[in-house]
């Protein structure tokens, strides 16, 4: 028998969540997903009507950094996810049950909710030597992934390791580690949230998108959501003006460093990295690595451990590199940046227009102005 599902409005009422809080919460979700404000009504309606879908969180060759990162989620908080929005049935790091009881809980989800639940995967999957490099309950990570992810409605790979094998897969890849999609080919509905770790703001937005639209947001060629991985860090960087003006940190702790100049010469990989790190930031939007004084290591880029290291080596020939050029050329660079920003804006609109509720519980939910909400 399937467990009885708990509709959210009743749950909200029971848990003392006010409408005001709920509206605030939904507004922050709309912003996180880069949806136009008119989507607020849809998000609210969908979330209010949603049952609590089941989620299982699998850890394989991981460091639990992505689990920890999820604990730092703000909108919604992990408490809201776990208690109000989802039924978080399996997560080794946090679940009450252990051993056989834990394994039974996972098996129950696969059996009772096949094709309905969300599987989140953290860590790489070793494929060498019959998968002996990671076993849980005596079973290999590979077998668990095939079984659990193969029966999920959607799979979310969080962090570099689950996406592309990450550090575990970097040269010489001693355990034959692979990311989820390569280890288990043919999975449906996979979203990759690269980063080391994933940024919980993005993961929260993807989950809320799924709860709202029963579908994943628009994705790029790596199955990464465009709202988070569509823009280059360098173009969003708060130190960008210094780059364009040719003001660089030359040595750690020098005057330029103290004034917040560009870290390009210290090896920053921002010009080659796609991520919304500078805008969503980390830990309640407090900071991000470049703001804190260190270059970007492009942790959200494909196979970044091998392709973006050495991390202190200056990137060769970045287009528009400002330090040795004349004022004229700098002017051209600036114009180029404006043009690029405009292109990004247009692309963003196209992306957003692709985001449509595919299927909601109420078919009358058309995109509408949310002014009255």
């Amino acid at each position, binding site marked *: 028998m399937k467990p009885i599902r708990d509709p959210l409005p009743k749950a909200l009422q029971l848990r003392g969540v006010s409408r005001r809080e709920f509206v605030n919460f939904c507004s922050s979700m709309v912003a996180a997903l880069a949806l136009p404000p008119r989507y607020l009504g849809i998000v609210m309606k969908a979330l209010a009507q949603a049952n609590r879908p089941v989620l299982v969180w699998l850890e394989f060759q*991981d460091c639990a950094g992505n689990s920890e990162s999820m*604990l730092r989620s703000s909108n919604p908080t992990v408490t809201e996810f776990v208690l109000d929005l989802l039924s978080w049935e399996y997560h*080794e*790091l946090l679940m009450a049950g252990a051993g056989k*009881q834990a394994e039974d809980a996972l098996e129950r989800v696969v059996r009772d909710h096949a094709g309905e639940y969300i599987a989140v995967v953290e860590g790489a999957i070793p494929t060498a030597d019959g998968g002996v490099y990671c076993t849980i309950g005596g079973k290999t990570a590979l077998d668990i992934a095939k079984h659990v992810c193969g029966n999920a409605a959607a799979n979310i790979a969080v962090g570099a390791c689950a996406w592309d094998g990450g550090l575990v897969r970097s040269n010489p890849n001693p355990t034959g580690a692979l990311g989820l999609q390569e280890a288990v080919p043919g999975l449906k509905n996979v979203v990759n949230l690269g980063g080391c770790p994933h940024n919980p703001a993005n993961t929260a937005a993807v989950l809320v998108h799924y709860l709202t639209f029963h579908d994943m947001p628009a994705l790029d060629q790596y199955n990464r959501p465009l709202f988070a991985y569509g823009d280059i860090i360098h173009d969003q960087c708060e130190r960008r003006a210094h780059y364009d003006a040719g003001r660089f940190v030359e040595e*750690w702790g020098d005057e330029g460093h103290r004034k917040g100049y560009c870290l390009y010469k210290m090896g920053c990989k921002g010009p080659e990295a796609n991520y919304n790190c500078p805008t969503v930031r980390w830990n309640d939007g407090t900071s991000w690595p470049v703001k804190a004084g260190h270059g970007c290591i492009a942790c959200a880029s494909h196979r970044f451990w091998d392709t973006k290291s050495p991390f202190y080596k200056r990137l060769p020939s970045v287009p528009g590199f400002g330090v040795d050029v004349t004022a004229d050329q700098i002017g051209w660079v600036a114009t180029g940046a404006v043009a690029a920003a405009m292109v990004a804006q247009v692309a963003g609109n196209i992306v957003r227009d692709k985001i449509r509720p595919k299927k909601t519980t109420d078919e009358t939910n058309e995109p509408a102005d949310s002014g009255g909400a």
Partner: protein
Amino acid sequence: MTRIVVDPVTRIEGHLRIEAQVEGGMIADAWSSGTMFRGIELILRGRDPREAWIWAQRICGVCTMVHALASVNAVEDALGIEVPDNARIVRNIIAATQTVQDHVIHFYHLHALDWVDVVSALKADPAKTSQLAQSISDWPMSSEKYFKSVQDRVSALVASKQLSLFGAGYWGHPAYHLPPEANLMAVAHYLEALQFQKQFIRIHAVLGGKNPHLQTFLVGGMATAMDPNEPGATINPERIDFLLEVAKSAIAFVNQVYIPDVLAVAGFYGDWFERGEGLGNFMSYGGFPQGSIKDPANFFLPRGIILNRDLSKVHSVDPANITEYVTHSWYEYSGGDQTAKHPFDGETNPKYSGPKPPYEFLDVNEKYSWLKAPRYQDQPMEVGPLARLLVAYASGQSDVKALVDATLAKLKAPPAALFSTLGRIAARALETQLLASRVVGWIQQLGDNLASGNVRIHNGEKWDPKSWPKTARGFGFFEAPRGSLGHWVEIEDQAIKNYQAVVPSTWNAGPRDARGQRGAYEAALVKTPVADPDRPLELLRTIHSFDPCLACAVHVVDARGRVYARAEA
């Protein structure tokens, strides 16, 4: 005689399996197995030692930053670099913040459910819960209405039959002793602690850019530029104010919530002061330098070893006495698997010889873990908060001695009570209290330096690899939340030749050695009662009291540079 298996051991970091033999309602013998291996060792070789910390940090994301710090310590030791005072202080703030954060999460989110019956909280009277909370603490969130709202939340979960993370617990187990009101209070604090950890760790966001996996360490110092007048500087007066505010909120939470909760739980589970500690040997490398890192005498937490539970003598630590065995680990040593090797001569040659998955039991007479077995002078050691506290207490560290004596007096317990499962929990809580207040002190010190114009944060003399000798080697010690951590590095021609880490959970969770001596977990479990072999709650209590971290524990780095070729899949 019953063989029980707990796999996965949940509410820990990583993949741990415990097998135990139960006889007459008690554990007669136990085996601890790490079931995951990544081989980061081979991956580090040939890379720039200045970035080793970025890679090494990914050994663990729960105790994030500890491997980063041990790594820069090791490379700085190899190259003879002294970091500026400000860098040392920032590192102390980051490390102490990590420890406080980690300990709070451990108590509430990883350990509490072994002592707290969530379902029993439904039977609590919110008014009485409020009285209970107010009788033990001044913490403001203690009204009847508040506890009622928490109870409603839990009750909605239970009514939905989807208990989420609280599903599959051992609810109703006879070993749970807390009254419903205490259970409800603990559930409320479980949820509050989730909020607390998220807010408190913003200290790491300011000083490290993000948490987990901070990004501001540098060989030679920190990337956190300081300037009293620049808004673009990572550390400026405004940020100091922010850091102080956040750090002070932690003191309030720790003193008014965490400490009273630990004392309350301890009051209902007194028998756990009598069991759960097996080795009697404790080691601490010492931590939080208040001067040069070369001189452990100035460390806030001292270095030393306690043998056979004898608190009258503190033995010194000589890094040359640290070795590792692979007799019962899935590796091979060139000199034979009965031998032990020092980290500078270590080898990591994985060779799985366990049962073919899926399997039911391990062959514990042979090799049974991905963890090695570290030993000090051939003796197993327990490391972690309890070891640090005992070494500090026996060394006469005044802050520690006063706090421990006062706490023991409150609990009406002798110092010997510390050698136990609850002893670990109490030690962790007291250490949190000590460090939370040190964080504030260190931030103030940093603010004073900033105000006086002392803004030096990095020693760049050896930043250029051309300034390095052809070969160099060194080691870095650090007391991570879970215990003594050491990294050893060998540099040749500006690249990492060999790298080795011996980490806290390897000391604690490691298997037997060539002489058959048990590791700390294995020894601690012997004589633990198990009321219901199908629901071994008591086993979890002792294992969780160590705060296992298995991603760390699996041996990560190869010192010999032995290459075993494998074509990429």
